[in-house]
């Protein structure tokens, strides 16, 4: 990968590089490595996600210097963990900015990664030779979800408490070992000090594991090369460009725009994306229904829609187990993407039927997010700026047409069908449009 001779003229850089050839590797990947010249703005989210990870680690480090993982309540009924977070917001210099940059930052990290992944799904970035690249990305997503959940718990408001209880409870769905895993996660039977302390330890550790996986992700990218909007391989020097200066400047522009929005939310709506009730430290008035942070909603929906037991010739799988299985499966299918999509064409641009189902899948994820946020037995609705758009009616007698749960089942079905049925079958029957000969040559008429 790295050139054999140091590219540097400066004697210090040259000397250093000849002893540890790390600068040369960076220099090589920035200037000599071939990138497709036609990457569009959807390709900006990768570098944005990387920078967000840095922002989270740096702000998180300073927050950790003031945080106390203790559920001990004082005479006000306020626990020490919650108090220490408020102490950061009120007494620590710049603490309010640190804290909001971290909590809002989590949301924006997810926004970047979600765009990044949907881009991959549309342009077929998971197909050979990028299977490992894609799978590492899936590992990153799962780590992020775990880290975000752990971090949310640390605040120890009422919703933190409820989330920690409900999510650790999910593991009891695992046969035989479930109860032991629960005790391992919680550090005991109860949701208590032991749980909060191990959550803090893990919340501090895992981001560095994540950073390690990100480095592997980038190394894999360097090896197999970037996909591009046409989804065809690089053919000649006419198709390529070096990363610097073209993509460095394009990435800086993308970052600046993204950060403008992120910091505006920090300034004017730092709690808009969060559940207000979690600012309450005491359980006098418990939340009426438990909802996770917005980025976990689609998976939470898949977890909660299964309310019936399945009887397979005497082997009973409870609704809870079905939900847990489905949630694990909803992440598991992502790993299988490279083999589930049978189409030889990468880019959705040349797949007229795929396009239709792809946007259906985007819609599906949005609907599932709403399902995750709403109450199962009630009529489902779509919130709009002009009020609620009802998609169900309460027929009385406890019977609801179009309940949140029914919509949830429907779209959980679509979610899985997209991966397990639509993509495999589509690849065999769809007639793709003609691919251009190369990036630099237009399509033959």
């Amino acid at each position, binding site marked *: 990968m790295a050139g054999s001779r140091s590219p540097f003229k400066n004697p210090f850089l040259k000397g250093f590089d000849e002893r540890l050839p790390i600068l040369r590797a960076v220099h090589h990947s920035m200037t*000599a*490595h*071939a*990138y497709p*010249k036609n990457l569009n703005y959807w390709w900006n989210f990768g570098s944005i996600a990387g920078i967000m990870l840095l922002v989270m680690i740096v702000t998180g480090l300073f927050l950790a210097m003031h945080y106390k993982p203790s559920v001990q*309540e*004082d*005479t*006000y*009924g*306020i626990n020490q963990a919650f*108090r220490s977070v*408020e102490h950061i*917001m*009120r*007494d620590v210099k710049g603490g*309010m*900015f640190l804290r*909001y940059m971290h909590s809002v930052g989590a949301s924006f990290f997810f926004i970047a990664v979600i765009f990044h992944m949907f881009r991959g799904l549309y342009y077929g970035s998971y197909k050979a030779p990028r299977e490992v690249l894609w799978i590492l990305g899936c590992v990153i997503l799962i780590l992020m979800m775990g880290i975000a959940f752990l971090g949310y718990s640390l605040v120890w*408001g009422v919703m933190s408490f409820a989330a920690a209880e409900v999510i650790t409870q999910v593991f009891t769905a695992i046969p035989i070992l479930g109860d032991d895993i629960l005790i391992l996660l919680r550090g005991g039977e109860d949701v208590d000090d032991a749980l909060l302390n191990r959550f803090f330890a893990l919340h501090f550790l895992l981001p560095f594991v994540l950073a390690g996986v990100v480095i592997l992700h980038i190394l894999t990218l360097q090896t197999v090369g970037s996909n591009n909007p046409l989804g065809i*391989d*690089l*053919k*000649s*020097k*006419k*198709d*390529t*460009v*070096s990363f610097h*200066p*073209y993509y460095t*400047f*394009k990435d*800086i*522009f993308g970052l*600046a*725009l993204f*950060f*403008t929005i992120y*910091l*505006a939310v*920090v*300034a*004017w709506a*730092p*709690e808009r994306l969060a559940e*207000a*009730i*979690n*600012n*309450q*430290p*005491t359980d*006098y*008035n418990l939340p009426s229904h438990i909802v996770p942070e917005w980025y976990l909603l689609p998976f939470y929906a898949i977890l909660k829609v299964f309310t019936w037991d399945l009887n397979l010739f005497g082997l009973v799988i409870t609704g809870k187990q079905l939900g847990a299985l489905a949630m694990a499966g909803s992440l598991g299918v992502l790993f299988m993407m490279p083999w589930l999509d049978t189409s030889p064409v990468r880019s959705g641009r040349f797949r007229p039927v795929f396009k239709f189902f792809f946007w259906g899948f985007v819609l599906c994820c949005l609907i599932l997010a709403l399902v995750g946020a709403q109450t199962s037995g009630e009529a489902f609705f779509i*919130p709009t*700026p002009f*009020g*609620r758009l009802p998609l169900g009616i309460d027929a009385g007698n406890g019977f609801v047409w179009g309940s949140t749960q029914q919509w949830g089942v429907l779209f959980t079905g679509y979610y899985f069908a997209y991966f397990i049925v639509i993509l495999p079958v589509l690849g065999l029957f769809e007639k793709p449009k003609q691919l251009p000969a190369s990036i630099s040559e237009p399509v033959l008429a």
Partner: protein
Amino acid sequence: MRFGTLLKTLSAAAALSTVAAAPAISEAAGPIDSQTWSFTGPLGYYDEGQLQHGLYVYQTRCQACHSLGLVRFSSLTGLDVSEDAVKALASTYEIPYINDDGDRDVRPGVLNDTFPWALGNPKRAIATYGKAPPDLSTMARSRIGGADYVYALLTGYDDAHEQPEGAYYNKVMKVISMPNPWPADMSDFEYPNGTRPSLEQQARDVTAFLNWAADPYLEERHQWGIIVVLYMLALTVISFLAYRVVAAKVYAKLDAEGGPDPEH
């Protein structure tokens, strides 16, 4: 008001955007009407006079049951109250502590203390009211609707409604263990400056105070936001232009000699 009159005049304009944004919040919370507050909108600020009145209402009507366990007396200087006045105010509170003989005792409050809880602890509070009056430090941030919710709750009492023993009727919370905080006759209630506020005015002032208690650095955040976002916008424009310039050069070079060898 550190940001001065400029902020206030600009805020009048910003109020328009607040009105537009408000329905979404109240919608989510159901029966809660949105109010106009000085602190909403991109240039929102606190009106110190109002906060001082709110503090007075809190002291008169709320602190018998509630606490502000995260709000230090010293932070009251942010309400434009002199440090001496804050010290004097703090010393009127009794703070429980263990004295040198190891006995439970009380001492006068100092700047670093937080507003104490007259009921002492959650157990006694529950024994007294059936449900503990929650600490109000973060209340304005912990309900959907925020300040609008608190105001709606405080103005939502209707004593004519029949309720079981120990419970009261409120439009926002149909069965609430908090008694109506407003006495039937408030005709001789005066603010320290001699004005006679209506019930709604008191509710409004104490709500503003509670919003400040929950989010004391809101003004700093808004000022920071204006500077940072303007800076970032400028950076966005400049970096876009720089990108276009670089792109033009790169394209020209690519046409002439191409990029790196893909086999490399």
